[in-house]
């Protein structure tokens, strides 16, 4: 697959990063097709990173019009542009991303993400969804898994000063350097649905609390028929009630999910730009690892909370049930 050589232009532009991941990884990147949906601040950061890295193509989906809120953490859109009359978020971001790296094809796809079938997802190597409902996450992940080729699936969400990334690489083979040797490694990933179905009781005691808190908020939005991210402080009583129910079902103590954390997640719907940069950066790195097959990818969740500053990987898969 690494037949063609990099052009002189590519070698000059990508010099510093080829020194990090090698020319073969750069060639693989240049043939990769990425789909992203939900163009808020975190995804804007991710798109910038992946376009700079030199992927083959990037397809954006987000039909929503521009609002003041969507501008708050998004550097891809100039606020005083009159051009956004009639243009969607995806279209505006596309214009600006094209400019970042002329060697990457950036385009817009219209429509509702969950209405697309397997044929559509088959065109991509990586699918990243953000601000997407629980049902949609599950169904898109399933559509990707049913394809004959491996499509890496990611979800990414930021709330208040917290962020979460989920990844499903299915059966993944990669190489890594161990001392002076390059060794082959293999990882098996569960789907999003299977991962979140793992009983909480069987999870390690020191699991990031954000994992549980994010699930409660996700369930709340699903039950109330809200759009992802459409919550406010007024929802807190209902969310706390849901917390109680869920934890009882899992036979766990309420203290597992601090009320203050849930409060931040439901009230802080506006993105915090430093966290967008961090989560968008980590996600970019992971996608580059998945495409290049180089270096340990994480399995299968990542959490960051600016209040304690920890960026933690968690492995939540059904193998845990047997423990």
């Amino acid at each position: 697959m690494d037949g063609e050589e990099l052009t002189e232009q590519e070698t000059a532009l990508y010099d510093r990063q080829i020194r990090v991941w090698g020319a073969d990884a750069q060639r693989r990147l240049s043939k990769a097709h990425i789909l992203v949906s939900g163009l808020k601040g975190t995804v804007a950061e991710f798109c910038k990173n992946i376009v700079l890295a030199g992927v083959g193509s990037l397809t954006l989906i987000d039909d929503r019009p521009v609002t003041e809120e969507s501008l708050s953490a998004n550097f891809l859109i100039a606020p005083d542009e009159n051009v956004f009359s009639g243009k969607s978020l995806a279209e505006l971001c596309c214009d600006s991303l094209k400019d970042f790296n002329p060697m990457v094809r950036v385009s817009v796809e219209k429509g509702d993400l969950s209405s697309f079938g397997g044929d559509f997802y088959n065109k991509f190597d990586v699918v990243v969804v953000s601000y997407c409902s629980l049902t949609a996450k599950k169904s898109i992940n399933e559509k990707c898994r049913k394809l004959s080729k491996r499509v890496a699936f990611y979800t990414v969400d930021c709330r208040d000063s917290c962020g979460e990334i989920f990844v499903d690489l299915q059966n993944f083979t990669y190489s890594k350097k161990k001392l002076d040797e390059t060794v082959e490694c293999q990882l098996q990933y569960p789907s999003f649905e299977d991962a979140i179905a793992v009983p909480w009781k069987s999870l390690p005691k020191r699991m990031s609390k954000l994992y549980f808190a994010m699930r409660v908020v996700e369930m709340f939005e699903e039950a109330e028929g809200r759009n992802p991210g459409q919550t406010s402080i007024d929802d807190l009583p209902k969310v706390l009630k849901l917390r109680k129910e869920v934890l009882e079902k899992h036979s766990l103590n309420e203290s597992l999910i601090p009320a203050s954390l849930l409060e931040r997640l439901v009230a802080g719907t506006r993105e915090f730009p430093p966290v967008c940069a961090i989560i968008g950066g980590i996600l970019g790195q992971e996608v580059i690892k998945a495409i290049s097959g180089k270096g340990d990818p994480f399995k299968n969740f990542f959490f960051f909370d600016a209040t304690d500053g920890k960026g933690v990987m968690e492995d939540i898969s059904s193998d845990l049930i047997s423990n």
Partner: protein
Amino acid sequence: MASEQQLSAIKGAKVLMVGAGGIGCELLKTLALSGFQDIHIIDMDTIEVSNLNRQFLFRKSHVGQSKAKVARDAVLRFRPHISITPYHANVKDSDFNVDFFKQFNVVLNGLDNLDARRHVNRLCLAGGVPLIESGTTGFLGQVTVHIKGKTECYECQPKPAPKSYPVCTITSTPSKFVHCIVWAKDLLFAKLFGDKNQDNDLNVRSSDATSSSEHAEDVFERKKDEDIEQYGRRIYDHVFGYNIEVALSNEETWKNRARPKPLYIRDVLPIELIQQNGNADKSFVADDSSSVSAMASLGLKNPQDIWSLRENSRVFFEALRLFFVKREKEIGNLSFDKDDQLAVEFVTAAANIRAASFGIPLHSLFEAKGIAGNIVHAVATTNAIIAGLIVIEAIKVLQNDANNYRMTYCLEHPSRKMLLMPVEPFEPNKSCYVCSETPLLLEVNTSRSKLRDFIEKIVKAKLGMSFPLVMHGPDLLYEVGDDLEEDMVANYEANLEKVLSELPSPVSGGTILTVEDLQQDLSCNINIKHREDFDEEKEPDGMVLSGWTKEKDKTTSTENGASTSNASEAVSLETNASEAVSLETKEDSDIEIVPTGIESVDTGKKRKLPEMSDATIPDSSKNELHEIDDDDDGDDLFMLDDGNSDGSKKKRLQ
């Protein structure tokens, strides 16, 4: 999202960014999005093509323009109503003095070299301005917070000195490719194209020193009317053939080493092939000196290919020829620059030919350029992450939220699942000559070393002072400045050439010298200890400075668990890479990683912040932290060492 308190702290803040490169671009963007309204940014660099893969505020059309100014314009496009003040200047300029620094609430560093970092550290200490320091290399990065009197300063931990190699390894007994690069770059390239008057150890020292030096008198000078090919063959045969023969004649050297093979051009490359080089000239159109390339005129395309000895020899001749044909005016004034294609080609070819002679594996131009230019690996993602972390710390600093300051490490192979690892800052190192008043100790032969040696090798090179002043008691021995009287200048010039013991106010064992840099507002005392002899190889300066040490832990820490070595290995490896080459190494890009945190793993020292008043902590976040941490083990910090928990309780990674 930011709280009201945070927002008002942000809005009222005036911040200084130093560096508009890899971290700088990301940082300026994130600051602007986060609501900062008054940002000043200093960067002396202009934009280059190799910046564009990560310095996303820049486009190809900006190449050659000021980074600070273009970055400002780019950010104003999405945040038109904030104030960004760019300075296309060196942060070491005297305009940026202590008063300049004092106007800012916090200084954020995104620098690429130790020298500037130390300078900014001193000005921040002098002005009492909080400093947030950062660095990235590849996937690794770190953010640290430096507050005078509360946390350690940037220089509390001695930084690893740039790697240098013994002269004889470079001139006579190279064993690694990097030795060949240093030889090609610092000796051969400098000799042929640089300042002819500079000292140069290019010629192998033979047992019969006189004859070889005589021979070397004018061998590198192109004779009048000498044909360029003739000249090239003469140089080639001299450095790769004759010099190796001379070295071989010194039997002692090769007792335990593989003997090199002298290479003469007649054996490597038929004369017709050298001449063919010249013929390619006709198809060569570009006249712009920056685009002159031997590879291009020889039809070699891929910089990742490893050329054969013959190809390297052809590149050697072609590059030499092009220098004389296309860039003759520059000869005599050139110094190696990693962005000078022809210079990189020449150095790659010469290093490879030497490597072939010594049985060392050859390398591609791409690799050779990385080593010769000391190029730091850099990707956009790590810079973005680090910039985000800087802003988070900056907001805490603006709110004076001292209990929550953290140093954060971005790791590639994390231990304990922690990809981003926050660590409580260390308290200041009591023996740091920069932020404490601890004197240093200098061992020197006072009757042999001159004041000039002391100024150059210690005051400038080791202490990082730019405008030094040296005093012995009330007597001024040396100072620099624009407003000095002529006779004073002459006086100081004369002092420079005197040995220490013969200065007007003689320096001997037991003397205490005071050294100051007025611009940095830094002063320190140096106790002089006389010592007769120094090891030429190990102590090439002929003097040894000490007293600025890491605090040793009482319990000796040995090897930590596997997870520990993982982290430290990753970082130290990068450190090596970024220090691969001996001489001046200023890289355009982002950083060298300085393994301060990791060093403390080895020393296992206990460094903890003194208790700070609770009153400064905003209530909301305090409660939160408490609640979240409650059933962790109550310890927000962590220990790198999983294995031995008892005695090493104090061994918090940092």
